[in-house]
């Protein structure tokens, strides 16, 4: 109990950024280009806007009920059983998200660097690492994110700026693209890449100053969205829209195309991928932590540690279900779109009902939690 309410605004923003930025950055330019060709940066901006709506909703909700997580306050708003159904959906969704993240990164590593290693090994290594780390408290969880934040920024900025050497502005035109309908669809796909921000609903009750959560989400979204935009602009301006359609992980290709000045290292992709372990790990840690933390709260248990290894086999098996990369990406896109209902639609619903029923969580502080919960 002594470690409650220790997370600062900066740590919250770091949690948001490092959760959002993960393995999704690798195929990001591909998704954006598929939807809008040269309008890819625009698609990313739109996606960021949609995701911001969702983030604002959960931040508002979190500040309204600043002592509770979404699992707890949803019961206040829409009643016990409806809320439990909602929470169950959230938990399943995040478990699936965890497994897909692990699988996606496993595929990336096996395809590009460790060609003769079975994908199961890389997946289980990442999942084990996440499972062990989730055995810490939420404060340590925040420390970890804060600590790794620079490790995440540096490679992205390095790749983006080194690759601008080869950029052609013509590749970015016309900036509005040719296909409006496609842009709309792509917006949803990109917005789905921001779903990690949902972790905020778990973090707000442990924040030192929950009233500043909006500031944290603003910065988190700005930095994460800015990095996304930077990567898309860099990839499209270097390769051009048509070329990117043929690349599975354009960001990784970007790393391959760039080399350090003075010829110290000829290709950066292996090094970047290695550093990228950090980014993927933080995303994985967040979704895994969210899953077990939510389960703990749904069943009203005190300790979330016991679930960290209990969940591991399920997540691992789910991660191994897709037959190949193509099928995996189909699943990822579909799960992402369905996820939008959960991460934006559900909080939106909760928000409206809470306004209509004039429910607030803050008046009588901690006691209300015991009475209702």
């Amino acid at each position, binding site marked *: 109990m002594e470690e409650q309410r220790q997370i600062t605004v900066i740590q919250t923003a770091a949690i948001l950024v490092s959760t959002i930025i993960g393995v999704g950055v690798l195929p990001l330019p591909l998704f954006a280009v598929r939807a809008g060709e040269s309008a890819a940066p625009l698609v990313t901006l739109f996606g960021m806007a949609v995701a911001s709506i969702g983030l604002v909703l959960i931040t508002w909700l979190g500040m309204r009920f600043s002592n509770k997580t979404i699992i707890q306050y949803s019961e206040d708003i829409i009643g016990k059983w409806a809320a439990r159904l909602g929470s169950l959906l959230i938990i399943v969704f995040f478990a699936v998200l965890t497994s897909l993240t692990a699988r996606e990164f496993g595929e990336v590593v096996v395809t590009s660097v460790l060609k003769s290693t079975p994908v199961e090994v890389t997946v289980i290594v990442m999942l084990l*690492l996440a499972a062990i780390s989730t055995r810490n408290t939420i404060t340590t969880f925040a420390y970890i994110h804060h600590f790794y934040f620079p490790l995440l920024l540096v490679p992205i900025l390095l790749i983006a700026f080194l690759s601008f050497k080869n950029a052609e502005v013509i590749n970015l035109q016309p900036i509005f693209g040719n296909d409006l309908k496609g842009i709309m669809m792509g917006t949803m796909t990109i917005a789905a890449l921001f779903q990690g921000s949902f972790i905020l609903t778990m973090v707000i009750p442990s924040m030192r100053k929950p009233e500043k959560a909006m500031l944290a989400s603003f910065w988190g979204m700005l930095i994460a969205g800015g990095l996304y935009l930077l990567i898309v602009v860099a990839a499209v301006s270097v390769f051009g829209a048509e070329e990117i359609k043929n690349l599975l992980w354009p960001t990784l290709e970007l790393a391959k195309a760039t080399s350090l000045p003075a010829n110290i*290292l000829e290709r950066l992709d292996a090094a970047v991928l290695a550093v990228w372990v950090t980014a993927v790990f933080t995303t994985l840690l967040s979704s895994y932590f969210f899953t077990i933390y939510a389960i703990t709260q749904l069943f009203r248990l005190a300790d979330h540690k016991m679930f960290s290894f209990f969940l591991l086999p399920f997540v691992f098996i789910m991660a191994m279900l897709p037959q190949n990369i193509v099928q995996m990406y189909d699943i990822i896109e579909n799960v992402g779109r369905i996820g939008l209902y959960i991460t934006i639609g559900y909080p939106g619903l909760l928000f409206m009902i809470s306004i209509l029923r004039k429910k607030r969580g803050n008046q009588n502080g901690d006691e209300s939690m015991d009475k209702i919960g």
Partner: protein
Amino acid sequence: METKGAIMNKQSAEALTPFSPSLHANVQAIRNRFGGSCDLVIRLFSSDAAPERELAIIYVDGIVDSETINESIMEPLMSLKLPQYRYQKGGKLLDALRSCVVSIGSVQEINTMDEALLYMTDGLCIILADGCAAALTADVNGGSQRAVSIAQTQTVIRGPQYGFVENIRTNISLIRRIIRSPDLHVQMHKIGKQTHSNVAVLYLHGIVNEGILKEVYRRLAAIDIDGVLESGYIEEFIQDETFTLFPTLLNTERPDSVAAALLEGRIAVLVDGTPIALMAPTTFFSFFQSPEDYYQRYDIASFVRIIRYVAYIVSMLLPALYIAVTTYHQEMLPTTLLISLAAQREGIPFPGLVEALLMEMTFEVLREAGLRMPRAIGPAISIVGALVLGQSAVQAGIVSAGMVIVVSFTAISNFVMPEFNMAATSRIIRFGFMLMAGMLGFFGIFVSVLFMLIHLTSLRSFGVPYMSPLAPGPTRQGLFRDVFIRLPWWAIVLRPLDMNLRNPKRRPNGKKPPAQRHTDKP
């Protein structure tokens, strides 16, 4: 300095044997208790002060200063000519001796046999009188010991050169001479059922965090062991986490390091019988700070400190990176370097991992051999190491020249660390990294690095996060002025530890006192 209280408390639980009024019974009991040991000196005599009653002085030879006993106890007692002095029967005789005769600084009266035995083994002299069921103790601690000399393990170019010795009293006095303040508090504990070793806790009152201090006392009080021969015994009992490769207590043999730690609000633990003192709480970064950092100019100190961090990372990761690059990621290297490496490795029968493990093991064996063997055969080891294992192994085509360079540089980097225990950590972890690199390349290395960093962030040293102020972030401005680099002394306003000190400020502000440029002009 003696903690009578501590001894009494420990003993009070058990039944104490009181003195008998008969001198001979007491003397006999003490002699029996020591099993007739030959170094027990029992001197029976009578004094003019009380001619009809026999007195006895009892001490253990060798741990007391016999000259002091002769001059300050025996002589006054035996040559006493004070007929006007009146005493009554019973304990009053001892009172009289204490106040008028025995000329020793620290004298006190005790009532039980158990105390007497403890004090005697601690280097005190016992004075017994016939007809008194009590005794006097006189502090005549002495005997031969090593003189204060140059610190052997942590040398500096600029700064005080002397180190601690094995005697705890001398060591405490060395610190007292640096911090001349009554706020320097020293609390003595006895630990060890057989050795009754003195363990002193030092701190600066008014600066130290009382909560952490209480925790130190609590952990020390919980130690139950037969003997404490070195501060390492204490360290393993009071450290926060046993199953970690990283040390969570600093140790030093330099009084100035201990004084600096006390000024930073840390707590020092000195153990009798060893020149190595412990300091806690500590952070990961304090292991990269040499005392010399604070004596040399700040720019030199900062440069050297950065070198240390780099060297530490190199000594942990270089062999692993070499294995990963040569086994999995050849495309990363510039073509010319790649060709040169490939040519070297052409005739090598082993894969990179085996080659690296072979050489690293060889080096570790050489190093340990160099440490343990008698000084006289030192050159033999250098010849075997340098010529046979280095040059000949390459010529014989067992290892590549590149590998030898990697191993040597790793080894040299390891010697840069100012703290031996932290350096040893990287020697062990290195093997884990090498194995992971051999199995999973860069991916494996980074997964293990991540794992290590997670472990580091979850460590605590007496409740202080091990990676602070980096993670969790600093709670106050200005905590980073003495972590990766050292700013000039006038800019270091705060004490470095992020741990709620009573008084976190070292200086009022971060401004340099103004200097007059033209001192010759009026």
